[in-house]
């Protein structure tokens, strides 16, 4: 257990170092570009040289990466050239906004996917299974921008029940809660079908096991077979899949944030990438990789605890 954890944590740190250095290399391979991006197309060459000098961009990439890494350990994330403010003042607010969407969406996805997945998987190929499976194929097939447009045209434009933008500012009399409905709906619609299919596959596998046949043949009632015998084993495998959705919900929602003008983490990263705002990109990448790898570690750990037959290296 201890060996497993320390190996995985080492992998986490190594991934963070490798990825952040690669991003640094990529973004700063051409130092002139950064100053040009900040000053715009009409700046003179002297002005650009001056700013490059001032920002210290003419020194070696390795030295600057070292400095940035040093800053990271003292809690200094650098200065955002796009927002003209320290990165620490921007990134946590944006992350908190996205986390708000993620928490609500996750709280809906987990129970819904378990109920639908178990209902579909308990009687393979029955009418209920076929309709749930088909519905989940179709909902995962709709790109987020398309479901955003579909839902907004129905509920915001046609019916007028909900706001079409979610800026988290109380404008036009729409409460913050009402602004969260459509973005969360798009996220749930896109992600739910995938998780449902995972739960269904696992449930269907368990229902084919000999011990389930024994339980049925010895005359247990159907709810007893499903809830007391099948459910526990069927939820072990999808548990990891469900945890991994956190990853998508926090770092993958850029499209939803764009459609609804939501001030979140993904949109911030898009803006930072387009403006080549290196400090903000780096901080965002570190956060994103940290979330990704730590949810994986959490998933593996949980799997090990839930399933004593598994030994992890």
């Amino acid at each position, binding site marked *: 257990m201890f060996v497993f954890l320390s190996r995985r944590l080492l992998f986490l740190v190594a991934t963070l170092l*490798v990825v952040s250095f690669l991003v640094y290399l990529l973004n700063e391979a051409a130092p002139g570009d950064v100053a040009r991006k900040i000053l715009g197309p009409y700046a003179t060459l002297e002005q650009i040289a001056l700013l490059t000098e001032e920002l210290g961009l003419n020194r070696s990439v390795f030295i600057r990466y070292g400095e940035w890494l040093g800053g990271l350990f003292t809690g200094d994330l650098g200065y955002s050239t796009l927002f003209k403010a320290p990165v620490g003042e921007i990134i946590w607010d944006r992350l908190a906004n996205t986390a708000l969407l993620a928490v609500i969406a996750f709280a809906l996805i987990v129970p819904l996917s378990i109920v639908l997945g178990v209902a579909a998987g308990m009687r393979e190929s029955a009418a209920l299974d076929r309709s749930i499976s088909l519905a989940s194929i179709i909902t995962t*097939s709709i790109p987020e*921008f398309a479901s955003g447009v579909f839902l907004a*045209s129905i509920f915001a434009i046609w019916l007028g029940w909900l706001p079409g933008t979610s800026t988290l500012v109380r404008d036009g009399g729409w409460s913050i809660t009402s602004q969260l409905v459509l973005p969360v709906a798009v996220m749930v619609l896109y992600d739910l079908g995938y998780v449902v299919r995972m739960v269904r596959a696992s449930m269907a596998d368990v229902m084919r096991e000999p011990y389930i046949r024994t339980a049925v043949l010895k005359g247990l009632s159907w709810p007893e077979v499903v809830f007391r015998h099948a459910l526990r084993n069927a939820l072990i495998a999808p548990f990891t899949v469900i945890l991994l959705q956190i990853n*998508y919900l926090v770092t993958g929602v850029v499209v939803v944030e764009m459609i609804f003008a939501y001030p979140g983490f*993904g949109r911030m990263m898009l803006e930072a990438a387009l403006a080549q705002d290196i400090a903000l990109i780096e901080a965002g990448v570190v956060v994103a*990789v940290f979330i990704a790898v730590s949810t994986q570690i959490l998933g593996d750990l949980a799997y090990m605890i839930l399933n004593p037959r598994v030994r992890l290296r």
Partner: protein
Amino acid sequence: MSTGSPILPPGAAGEPLPRTAELATLWRLLRSPVGALGLALVAFWVAVALFAPLIAPFEPNANDYLALADPTPSGVHWLGTDNLGRDIVSRLAWGARTVLVIVPIAVAAAYAIGCLMGLLAGYIGGWADTLLMRLSDVILSFPVIILYMIVLAHFGPSAINVILAVAFTAAPSVARIVRGLTLDLSNRPYVAAARLRGESPWYVMFVEILPNARGPLIVDGCLRMGYTTIAIGVLGFLGLGLPPDDPNWGGMVKDTYALMSVYPHMSLIPCGAITSLVIGFNLLADGLREVAGDE
């Protein structure tokens, strides 16, 4: 979409099919309603892409300024015009061509890299396995959409960059599937026979193992075409990757969704197009899996 690998049909790998059996598979696919609908949707868009120059009544980038007064569908512009007075039918048809050229190339490239990685990892094993799978873990742990944003914002819009970015991020998950299939197929008698004849490892990997893994790989490839279509649409929507003048469905939504409250048709139509193509790929994959499961 960053979520992992699709479910594979049990026992679908490894049974070599004679030619007539493949025709029988196609026949069974057409008889399953889900598979037939998927095939029909995909075939429809492939036909639109092939005959785009014949279908499109106007140049996809030509502006009809007279239509700006009323861009809704009319006798001249069957599906209306967009925010710049460009004919939506024409842009839809040329956009079908854009997506159906880029997506298959990107998926093929991902398969070329992924199959090589997976075969080496699964067949050679040992250090090659450890190295390749660790490398895959690093790439897979990185949030795909953020990777696309950073790389494509840096290298600028071009179809080649999009293909490379998609292939690079999809290859590791193809590699995992191929590795699993390779581990399974390596124990088959015909692989042992080839080894005893003294065939080289390359021959065994590409002639004995890979062709026999094609069942599950075709199903996965179909699903991956669907994901990749979504990815290309998203990149177009975010304004990353594809040159703005090439009509692409995601870009059509990006240009017009701000006008949704006045002219919803401008964004609803391309959204419907991309959704129907992705549904087509995914239903086709489901039909193929069902057919493979029957065998």
